[in-house]
């Protein structure tokens, strides 16, 4: 009798404690990106770059993809672009693809930016659908996708040349 009571009480208390714990945890982390999970496959998308070529993420299976979300009005994005360009030159023949997705700006602005910075990797403009799928909030944000198409790392914020290199090294097939 006494034992039964203890067990019932323990179970009820534990269940409630777990529920409260989960709620607190979720409340703390509610602002974090929760759409993309490291280790899971990266959601597919199709975008057309500034030269008119179509890029579909799933077609890059077998290569590592360095997926960068940016905008011209974002200072850190602008600062990290040359590093990405430099490392792209190093790694493009080793099976690493860079895809840079601009956050819905005009063709003119993006084209001028590409010219000014001398970018050679594909840059595409997304009107919101891809950003919404990836749960993009602050820019820049970079996703590293391995040759199987799984997300291996999510980095929010500015990159240094060293980290860009290390990241590309990481996803090199």
């Amino acid at each position, binding site marked *: *009798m*006494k034992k039964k*009571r*203890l067990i019932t*009480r*323990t179970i*009820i*208390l534990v269940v*409630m404690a777990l*529920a*409260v714990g*989960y*709620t*607190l945890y*979720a*409340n*703390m982390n*509610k602002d974090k990106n*929760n759409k993309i999970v490291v280790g899971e496959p990266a*959601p*597919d*998308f*199709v*975008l057309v770059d500034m030269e008119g070529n179509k890029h*579909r993420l799933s077609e890059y299976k077998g290569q590592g993809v360095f997926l960068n979300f940016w*905008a*011209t*009005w974002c*200072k850190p994005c602008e600062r990290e672009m040359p590093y990405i360009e430099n490392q792209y030159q190093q790694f493009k023949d080793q099976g690493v693809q860079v895809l840079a997705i601009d*956050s*819905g*700006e*005009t*063709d*003119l*602005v993006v*084209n*001028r930016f590409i010219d000014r910075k001398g970018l050679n990797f594909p840059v*595409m403009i*997304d*009107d*919101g*659908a*891809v950003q*919404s*799928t990836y749960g993009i909030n602050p820019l820049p944000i970079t996703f590293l996708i391995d040759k199987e198409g799984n997300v291996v790392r999510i980095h929010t914020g500015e990159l240094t040349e060293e980290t860009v290199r290390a990241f590309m090294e990481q996803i090199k097939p």
Partner: protein
Amino acid sequence: MKEVKCECGHVNPQGTILCESCGRLLEDNEKEKQLIDMRYEGSARRSQTYNKTIIDKIWNFFSSVKVGVSLIIILLIASSLGTIFPQEMYIPPLLPASEYYGEKYGWLGKLYYDLGFHNLYSSWWYLILIAALGISLVIASLDRVVPLYRSLKNQRVKRHESFLKRQRMFHVSDAELPEEASAKIKAKLAKKRYKLREEDGDLLAEKNRFSRWGPYVNHLGLIIFLIGGMLRFVPGMYVDEILWLRDGETKSIPGTEGRYYLKNNQFIFEVYDKDKDEKVFKDAISKVGTVVKNYQTNATLYERQGDIIPGETPKLEKVRDQSIQVNKPLKIDGYALYQVDYKLGEMSKMAFKLENKQTKEQFGDLVVDLYDPKMSYDLGKGYKVEVMSYFPDFEFNEDGEPATKSRVPNNPAFIFNMITPDKPDGEVSFVAIRQNLEPLGENDYKMTFAGIETKNVTALTVRKDYTLWIIGLGGLIFMIGVVQGAYWNHRRLWIRRINGQIWTAAHTNKNWYGLKRELDEVFADSGIDAPKDQEAEDKKE
């Protein structure tokens, strides 16, 4: 478990004050009291009886009404603190919160911010308070409802004298109760919807016992409500996004995973007109100035056909046209789109003329679409304007260079290269609103501003909330419980023949006045007196 056996033979759980069956007093110290405490029918509240392990201690802590009420009071005070200054979500987005409070409300505001009161209702300690109250609801209810159920179910018609004597409503009549009078009383009681039980001429009349379950039903409702609130944190149960749409623009509705698209055909903003609208409003309108009448988005809803790959140009099929207004959201498939914000007159096109500064001669018009400017505009006859840079939301950055704050054309600025037959390499001109700079030296030509076109922008909130029905269910159950407990009273009347006397006692969980009135009616002309209020008698003495 130590049990208490009553003289009547019924075995009661430990801690019982009044025998569940006959009502005899089981605890000695209760015997000195004139009236007994009938709160839980004198049944054993489990929590109070065992206090051995840590689990029992935690359990007992939450089971206590004192703790529950303290939690309510603390929660009440905490909630009021959050209304001293606005919460972060209601402050204008001009300044970051860290500066806003100090700037606007002085040191008190700073303190408010430092204590985290600007986000009080989602702070960990506030959530813990609510959670503690929820736990207390569960445990306190469980601890009381079971014993109460047992004693109300087990009660006998013949209650012990010590029980009757200590009821607030009690009386002993030195009179006989003839069969005829007894039948009359019973008939009256039955008419008042009492349920009657008889044993050897003794009577128990009872009604509205279900009202005793009211508190537990409403607690259940609250628990369900809180569970609903908790489920909101489970991914996929809740979507809250915002969608800005310019007039004529079509976009995918965020949160729908690319399934639905919305086109804003037109955003409408109306204010009351003191001459055109109803005359009764005239005074109020002229006093206040502008009163908004309507915010409305005339929208078309589309559904995407085929596979969904984000980014791909979608094939859309129209679902329906609908106007979205405040209080009239558009609903589709569990999603609701609400009119929440707007922007009037966002610049969409800018027109310029290329002009010779000296002769004032003009060489054609160009209209720049601010959402999609072209690289160059050919004006013919060797006149051409190249757009070298475009800054939709222009500012000078820290380095003093022109830059853009965002992609929204709030303050468009351009660097043009004007190519003319006499200047084939072009002249560079920086043009912003009310600004015309010549960064590379004096020019012969200039771009004159020739007007703008604007568009309205609407903002819609996209919501999906699968917790709503649970929360609604909780609310409904709460209401049922609270009404059940508040609008009905559990009343009981005992009539016993003891040693040639008629003993009457009555109990209600509330509204004694009503019970008295009812009993006076029942016992009128019966030859015996209705039970009297012993508490009121005390006060008179």
